[in-house]
């Protein structure tokens, strides 16, 4: 997957390494400084539900802005062109707004500490345990995949042996989360957000100058806007978001507008953004309901603009190295950003870029680890193994679980370095878990009759259906889908439909929970005694969730215009 080529070695010097060293010191410093704020398990797992919205909002977007995401989306930009914007404007923004405006009152208002815990109160222990176990296992494995990806990138760019990168990054993450808990993870994510922008913005500016600005870039790729009769290297649809996506038309993405809108824009994206606890946890640590609602909404605005510094460098790399991703060139699409770093950045900014990349890898892993320790401690250990101990016991357990999680992740990374194909399958596999989870959540929140067994069987059948579709119907060529991406979108739709149908059927033959036990968990009910008075200043117009949310949706729609004409 992330096989980086030889010859990507950067000409780093003492200046770049000093910048990197300063960052490592600050990362650990945050851990030590946050340590004294951890008194209860709630402080460790959810920052005592006390952080301001701008901090949780930036952490929300940064938890998703891991380095695998950055390198991967630049790679998609080089491979699929402007289709990549779908992952942002339709594949993220509507779901983030939905989370903030519609789902957050249930999550935050019901005082649950994790996404699986919501399932416990809404549906009961069977679906709770199933989703907690799946989440715990997948978080550790994804953290390992992330570490492994980092080791490969650092080996190519800096010449570090893989094990050095895995051990160094693993122990720094372990250190700062064990010390400061979620506060430490979130603060590092906010810092990472700014460092990664400080790396990507100069890269994009210099890159655009190199290829003759946006016009030069368009001309080289599509032949439009240049001299009469000039031909671009990628065909004229390359910078259009929708051209070529008619049903039955062939395109590089292997998907049509329907699977893009339903598969990516609805089920996959809603599954990821609204039920992935690594994301939702950031919002649950906000200081009140208004701040929790604003968390994903504040995150939506940077998310809309990130393609400018991620996809555009991917396109620039394709112009600078036209053989990128072609067989025999030795360069893969994933090398897009490393190529630009190598060719365009002088020492100094280069150090910032290396630091930003490393920070993004560590923060991506930290998001997995900090959500893993919460779910494992609260939803597995405290719920089923050692119940009703003192709070200090669970705080100590949380610290141990963090260490165990990181070490398991490091082990996974070492295994991945010998079986990299297995890791590809694992990632695909885990992408299927969120979709049935979303299906169960949305039905459970809006249909108060839906029953506990329905939640469990909906979750299980949806997950199995997605796997069956992907690994049997698609991989064994029973049905014909042109690409892995296209198959992903279709599998997600299948998972959602099967999960929903199974829930409907099981609900009709089982007994619902009494309505009074569902207060605050389903639409149209409120938990008694949990209403909060609005905080001072939250009625300012720029803090109104509805305005922020609809503003983000409109802005994302407007962004499509230049790529649709």
């Amino acid at each position: 997957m992330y096989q980086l080529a030889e010859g990507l070695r950067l000409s780093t010097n003492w200046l770049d390494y000093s910048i990197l060293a300063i960052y490592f010191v600050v990362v650990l410093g945050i851990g030590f400084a946050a340590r004294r704020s951890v008194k209860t398990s709630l402080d460790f797992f959810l920052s005592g539900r006390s952080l301001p919205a701008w901090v949780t909002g930036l952490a929300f977007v940064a938890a998703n802005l891991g380095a695998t995401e950055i390198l991967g989306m630049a790679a998609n930009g080089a491979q699929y062109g402007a289709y990549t914007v779908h992952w942002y404007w339709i594949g993220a923004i509507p779901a983030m707004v939905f989370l903030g405006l519609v789902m957050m009152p249930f999550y935050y208002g019901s005082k649950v500490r994790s996404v699986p815990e919501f399932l416990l109160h809404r549906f009961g222990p069977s679906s709770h345990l199933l989703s907690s176990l799946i989440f715990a296992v997948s978080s550790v494995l994804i953290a390992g995949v992330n570490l492994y990806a980092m080791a490969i990138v650092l080996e190519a760019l800096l010449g570090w042996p893989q094990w050095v990168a895995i051990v160094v990054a693993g122990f720094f993450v372990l250190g700062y989360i064990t010390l400061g808990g979620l506060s430490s993870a979130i603060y590092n994510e906010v810092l990472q957000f700014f460092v990664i922008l400080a790396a990507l913005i100069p890269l994009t500016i210099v890159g655009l100058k190199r290829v003759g600005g946006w016009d030069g870039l368009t001309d080289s790729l599509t032949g439009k806007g240049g001299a009469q009769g000039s031909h671009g290297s990628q065909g004229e649809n390359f910078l259009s978001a929708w051209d070529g996506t008619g049903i039955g038309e062939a395109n590089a993405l292997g998907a049509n507008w329907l699977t893009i809108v339903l598969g990516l824009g609805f089920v996959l994206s809603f599954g990821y953004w609204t039920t992935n606890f690594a994301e939702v946890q950031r919002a649950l640590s906000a200081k009140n309901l208004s701040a929790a609602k604003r968390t994903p909404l504040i995150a939506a605005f940077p998310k809309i603009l990130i393609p400018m510094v991620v996809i555009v460098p991917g396109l620039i790399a394709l112009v600078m190295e036209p053989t990128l991703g072609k067989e025999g060139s030795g360069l893969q699409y994933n090398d897009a950003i490393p190529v630009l770093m190598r060719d365009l950045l002088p020492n100094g900014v280069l150090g910032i870029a290396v630091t930003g990349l490393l920070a993004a890898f560590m923060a991506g892993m930290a998001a997995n680890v900090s959500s893993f320790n919460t779910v494992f401690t609260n939803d597995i250990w405290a719920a089923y193994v050692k119940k009703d101990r003192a709070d200090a016991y669970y705080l100590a357990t949380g610290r141990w679980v963090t260490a165990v999680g990181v070490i398991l992740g490091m082990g996974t990374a070492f295994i991945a370095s010998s079986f990299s194909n297995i890791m590809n399958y694992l990632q695909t596999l885990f992408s299927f878990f969120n979709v049935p989870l979303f299906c169960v959540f949305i039905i459970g929140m809006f249909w108060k009759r839906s029953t506990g067994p329905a939640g469990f069987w909906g979750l299980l059948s949806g997950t199995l259906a997605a796997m069956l579709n992907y690994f049997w119907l698609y991989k064994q060529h029973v049905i014909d889908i042109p690409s892995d991406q296209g198959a992903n979108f279709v599998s997600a739709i299948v998972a959602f439909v099967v999960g929903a149908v199974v829930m409907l059927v099981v609900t009709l033959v089982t007994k619902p929970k009494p309505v009074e036990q569902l207060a605050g968990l389903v639409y149209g009910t409120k938990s008694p005694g949990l209403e909060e008075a609005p905080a001072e200043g939250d009625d300012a117009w720029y803090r109104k969730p509805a305005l922020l949310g609809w503003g983000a949706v409109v802005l994302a729609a407007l962004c499509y215009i230049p790529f649709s004409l």
Partner: protein
Amino acid sequence: MSDYQHEVKELERTSATAARLFDVRRIIGGLFVVYGVIVTIAGLTASDADLKKAEGININLWTGLGMLALGLFFLGWL
């Protein structure tokens, strides 16, 4: 209110985060001022090779000044 909600409410009451957690703006501000100074100096002393690599833009100087400004903004916002 159910049991777990009482428990969370109790934990919120004894939580130390709100009172004891430092402000992240200090850290962002401090780090960006330090980085800004380092990178600006690298820009002021840039070699011809550095300039040529970055297409004639003194990218260290501009990035450094930008980071310095952001760092000062965060420190000033406190």
